[in-house]
């Protein structure tokens, strides 16, 4: 079972590369934000899986929970920026 | 139980938070609180010095754990001396600077005092601690407060100077931390004495070498040795007076102390001078720093900036002296920590008094100053003589030791640089004296019109009394330390080195 868990964990790690691509090359900032959100949700699960690999999952649950909270805060803050400021593309795009 | 080593640090720390809390009730309460806590700290440090002289090294275990496990304060003669120096200068400066703080940071003076106290706490801790990592934390607290306080100065340029200082300071502190990491990975310990016990068992380890060089690099960045000095002149020039008066004498000297501590206590002189072949290069570096600092000081048009470059020059003295590799050089370097702190403090005290009356200290504004502020200028002249190295003042004696050490080590270039720098300082200060004393009066005073001192007749217009009294005390100390420097060397420095 542990082997299976570590396979899933490695798989999830590799899976993170796809949203990461969106994060790195996303044409607008909001695309990057989507990537962050997706990476965040995968990380929560990955943390739990690592907890199982260490056989101390009760310790890792706390981190995962905190992580979920704070990811939310960060995403809300970043998207709230656009509620107040206009201009989606980089300003240097213009000139 | 003798708790003075803890009180030394805790008094200003508690004072900082009480001063901060008091400010919410009554703004005026924070200044006396800060003063009281620094007085307590000075008292404690003097006590510690007495005890160390009487009974030898003082060990204080924080939280009651034995040294390699917990953090230990290990105060020997060198520590105790620097502690007294730091706490008394901080106390005197606070005493002198009330009006300056009110003038420059009117609506947030209380916060200024809090940050000032934290800065002093950091310096005292850096000097007292016997743990490598604790040193890092304390360096950071010192730097963080000094970034803040520097940024409070000149409205236009200070924030940028402070940000540059921050970037370079962070690199320095990080290099130090990395060096500690390398030492930790190979020894498994963080206590200085413990590490010193383990290191001789690891000859020829590249990790130790890298760790040592990284630590040294970090400390050099923090002390502004020649190629790494870029942050210092701007930072000190644009800082508020009350802060530049304490940071200029103390910050770099404390870092020199850290370097000497690392060299003597942690790595051991044998490792440094016998195994490594760096001393030649470092002495050259010190030589270049002296010459460069002197030349740059000559090129300045602003009194404050000129003094900042003189600090860069003085750093060269101490680093070079410490790396000469003989007892005389080390004695000179340690003695110069004390002397230079006092000299710089006196200079910046006088400078602060001038700034209090004349906002801009470009040379062109200084004319007629001797008539206007005779007492301040008297102190200034004394400090200047000391920097040049005129015999009765203290600056002469440390220079004497340094030159003797240089000859013994055969580093004639260093000795030559010391003499040249004396010459340069003489030229510099006499230029300033000439402007202040002999320059045509009308010229400078018409320049002063905008500041409201536009009387054609020179009126005596002195700085606040507290400031003058402090300047007097420090000037006295300059001569006293000079006269008794033999005593200091014999009771403190030589016993420490042997």
């Amino acid at each position, binding site marked *: 079972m542990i082997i299976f868990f*570590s396979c899933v964990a*490695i798989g999830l790690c590799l899976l993170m590369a796809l949203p990461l691509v969106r994060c790195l090359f996303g044409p607008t900032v909001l695309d990057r934000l989507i990537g962050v959100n997706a990476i965040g949700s995968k*990380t929560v699960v990955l943390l739990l899986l690592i907890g199982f690999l260490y056989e101390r999952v009760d310790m890792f649950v706390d981190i995962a929970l905190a992580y979920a*909270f*704070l*990811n939310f*805060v960060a995403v809300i*803050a970043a998207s709230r920026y656009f509620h107040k400021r206009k201009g989606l593309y980089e300003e240097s795009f213009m000139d | 139980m003798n708790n003075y080593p803890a009180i030394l640090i805790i008094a200003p720390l508690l004072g900082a938070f009480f001063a901060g809390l008091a400010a919410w009730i009554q703004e005026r309460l924070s200044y006396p609180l800060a003063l009281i806590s620094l007085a307590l700290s000075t008292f404690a440090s003097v006590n510690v010095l007495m005890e160390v002289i009487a009974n030898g090294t003082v060990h204080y275990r924080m939280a009651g754990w034995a040294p390699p496990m917990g953090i230990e304060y290990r105060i020997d003669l060198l520590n105790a001396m620097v502690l007294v120096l730091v706490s008394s200068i901080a106390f005197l400066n606070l005493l002198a600077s009330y009006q300056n703080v009110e003038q420059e940071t009117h609506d947030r003076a209380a916060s200024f005092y809090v940050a000032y106290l934290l800065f002093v706490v950091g310096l005292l801790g850096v000097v007292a601690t016997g743990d490598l990592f604790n040193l890092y934390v304390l360096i950071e607290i010192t730097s963080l407060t000094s970034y803040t306080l520097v940024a409070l100065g000149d409205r236009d340029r200070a924030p940028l100077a402070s940000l540059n200082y921050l970037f370079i300071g962070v690199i320095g502190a990080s290099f130090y931390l990395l060096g500690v990491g390398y030492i930790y990975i190979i020894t498994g310990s963080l206590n200085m004495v413990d590490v010193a016990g383990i290191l001789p068992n690891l000859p020829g380890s590249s990790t130790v070498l890298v760790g040592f060089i990284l630590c040294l690099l970090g400390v050099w960045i923090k002390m502004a040795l020649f190629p790494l000095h870029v942050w210092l002149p701007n930072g000190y020039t644009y800082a508020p007076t009350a802060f530049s008066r304490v940071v200029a004498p103390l910050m770099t000297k404390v870092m020199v102390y850290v370097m000497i501590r690392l060299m003597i206590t942690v790595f051991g002189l044998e490792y440094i001078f016998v195994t490594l072949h760096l001393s030649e290069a470092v002495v050259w570096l010190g030589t270049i720093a002296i010459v460069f600092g002197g030349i740059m000081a000559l090129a300045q048009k602003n009194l404050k900036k000129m003094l900042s470059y003189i600090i860069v020059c003085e750093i060269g003295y101490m680093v070079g002296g410490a790396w000469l590799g003989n007892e005389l050089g080390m004695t000179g370097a340690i003695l110069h920590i004390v002397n230079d702190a006092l000299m710089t403090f006196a200079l910046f005290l006088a400078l602060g008094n001038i700034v209090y009356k004349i906002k801009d200290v470009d040379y062109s504004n200084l004319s007629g100053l001797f008539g206007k502020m005779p007492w301040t200028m008297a102190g200034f002249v004394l400090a200047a003589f000391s920097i040049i190295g005129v015999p009765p003042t203290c600056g002469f004696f440390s220079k004497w030791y340094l030159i003797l050490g240089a000859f013994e080590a055969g580093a004639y270039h260093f000795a030559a640089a010391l003499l040249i720098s004396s010459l340069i300082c003489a030229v510099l200060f006499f230029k300033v004296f000439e402007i202040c004393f002999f320059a045509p009066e009308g010229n400078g005073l018409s320049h002063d019109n905008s500041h409201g001192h536009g009387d054609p007749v020179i009126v005596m217009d002195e700085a606040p009394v507290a400031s003058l009294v402090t300047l007097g005390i420090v000037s006295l100390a300059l001569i006293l330390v000079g006269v008794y420097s033999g005593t200091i060397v014999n009771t403190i420095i030589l016993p420490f080195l042997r």
Partner: protein
Amino acid sequence: MLWPIDLIVLTFVIVTAVAAISVRDLLGTAILFSVYSFMMCLLWAVMGAVDVAFTEASVGAGVSTVFFVAAVFSTSRRTKD
């Protein structure tokens, strides 16, 4: 069995670090920086440093990203490099 995860995450960390300093938009930098913190948190969890991971999760992912966005909000997004 943990070192492959460690290696993969470390690679991601370096990729995000390079990206964060080369994006021509400070808000994008802020967001990539938060990804960087996520990865760091994961890395420390993999290395068994739970407390450090917790701190990084709370500081890097939450607070310092928000500070960053706040600073960008009150200054500007423009950057030349």
